């Protein structure tokens, strides 16, 4: 599957990822469904268009790096990696099972295509920053993309990394925030608001872009803009998304943060996704 800018095709990929997320979560009886559904278009735009990668050479030195800092949304990540050709779609049946390469949180030593292990929130941006610094030292050309959850931006370490990258104007580092406004126990605003979010990133020395995180065409154009700006310094794309996107009874509900659909919910979700 070659990278493409064909929006219609990418939308069909996104739909397939969404369907497989629901299938896999239901079969496993596990998974972070809500945050996996909100990142679908972002992962589609990255893995099927933007990222310079080769599934046959996962260790290629000049590949673009991707870090899923919100490691709990591994389900969406694994589906995207499988469809992109890193491992068979069939493997998704082992998700979250004993001895599986597809651990609850991504493990770089177990799962092909995972550039770094994540799971404890707030740590991915620092790791991506380290990669971007290493790239500079080795005079390589790859880009580093870090996908952050909105909830994890409540972690202080995110802002330590943001301060360093912004202050030193580290190039070729792109952060994307899956701003679905909902965390494990409640909405972001009810627990601890991030606002004024864009202003915070700007104050830390980042260029800030904002996009509808479910609009593939908009995501592609924003990634291309970010890529140009990132030649000079770090860029963050605040992607406005909906937690549980695509399944009406999951949308915007914190109850679906870490839950898999039961048989009845699965049938209803499938029916809704098929009708699109």
């Amino acid at each position: 599957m070659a990278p493409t800018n064909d929006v219609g095709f990418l939308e069909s990929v996104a739909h397939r990822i969404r369907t497989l997320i629901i299938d896999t979560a239901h079969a496993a009886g596990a998974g972070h469904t809500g945050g996996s559904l909100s990142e679908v278009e972002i992962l589609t735009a990255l893995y099927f268009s933007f990222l310079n990668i080769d599934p046959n050479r996962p260790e290629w030195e000049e590949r673009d790096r991707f870090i899923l800092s919100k490691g709990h949304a591994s389900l969406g990540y694994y589906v995207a990696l499988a469809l992109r050709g890193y491992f068979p779609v069939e493997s998704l049946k082992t998700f979250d099972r004993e001895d599986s390469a597809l651990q609850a949180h991504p493990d770089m030593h177990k799962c092909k295509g995972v550039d770094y292990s994540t799971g404890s929130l707030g740590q991915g941006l620092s790791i991506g920053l380290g990669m971007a610094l290493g790239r500079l030292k080795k005079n390589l050309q790859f880009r580093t993309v870090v996908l952050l959850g909105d909830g994890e931006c409540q972690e202080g370490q995110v802002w330590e990394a943001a301060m360093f990258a912004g202050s030193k104007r580290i190039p070729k580092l792109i952060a994307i925030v899956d701003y679905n406004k909902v965390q494990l126990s409640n909405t972001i605003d009810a627990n601890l608001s991030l606002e004024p979010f864009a202003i915070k990133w700007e104050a830390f020395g980042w260029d800030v872009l904002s996009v509808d995180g479910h609009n593939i065409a908009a995501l592609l154009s924003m990634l291309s803009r970010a890529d140009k700006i990132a030649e000079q310094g770090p860029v963050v794309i605040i992607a406005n998304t909906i937690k549980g996107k695509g399944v009406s009874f999951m949308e915007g509900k914190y109850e679906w943060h870490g839950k898999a659909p039961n048989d009845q919910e699965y049938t209803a979700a499938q029916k809704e996704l098929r009708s699109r």
Partner: protein
Amino acid sequence: MKLGEEIAQRTAFGQALVELGAEIPNMLVLDADVGPSTQTQLFGRTYPDRFIEVGIAEQNMVGIAAGLSTLGFIPWISTFAVFMTKRAGDQIRNSIAHPRANVKINGAYGGLPTGRGGATHSAVEDVAVMRAMPGMIVMDPADPREAVACARLAMDIKGPVYLRTVRCPVPVIFPENHKVELGKAVKLHEGKDVAIISSGMMTPRACKAVEILEGQGVSAKLLHMPTIKPIDVEAICDAAESIGAILTVENHSIIGGLGGAVCEITAEYAPCRIKRLGFPDIFLESGDDEVLFSRYNLDIAGIVAAAKVLAERRNDVH
């Protein structure tokens, strides 16, 4: 570096980094605003392009090092042990230990000597924390020469290593050709009445204690343990079985460090009488290093007294 000369481990470690940096071009050093204290500033001055000052942001430092390690760099991260192992403890666990990142960790200002820093700056539990971390190698060198040897050994190991250093001057006790082996105790004295097992800066004073004991008719075996993990199980069991009484001496809490490790092993494989010298379950306070050490019997006289009591009681039924 001459035998008996008193040198701060941090200085020896800082100089070792400069030496290693000359041999290993992909080695980097990161510090969190305490380079003049940890002496990583020596490396920073020599190799400014290979030194990264991250500011007072230990968690970010750990993550940056993890990312750098994926590109074949071997980063040393360095700050005070107390902050390294707790402030950035989760980052070390999840960004370095679990991914088996090839990052070397220097916990400076280990234990009590912190330049009168007191409770907040004294790492009394860093060895316990790091020892419990799956796969982590933990080193606590005795003297400046061994600190250098440990830094060198850490570079030969592929994967995370925690190297603890202390702030205060420590006498050189090892000869120039001293080598450290992972999980191997260094036998410094043979004896039959009591076995002393020490680590870190307590070993030079345990050497002195053994001499005094000998003069008082107590024959003490002395084992120094440069790596707390892996630890020399065989040497510990041999001491337990042949002597039956072990005194552990460490610049650390008696919970979870060298004493804890020796108890775990003897309890399981070779039960014997044990006394742990170290800090009880307390926070330390500011003051003179030696005055404070003596409160916990971590001076030469304290070690001698504890060893004598143990030697006398070793045949008691327990």
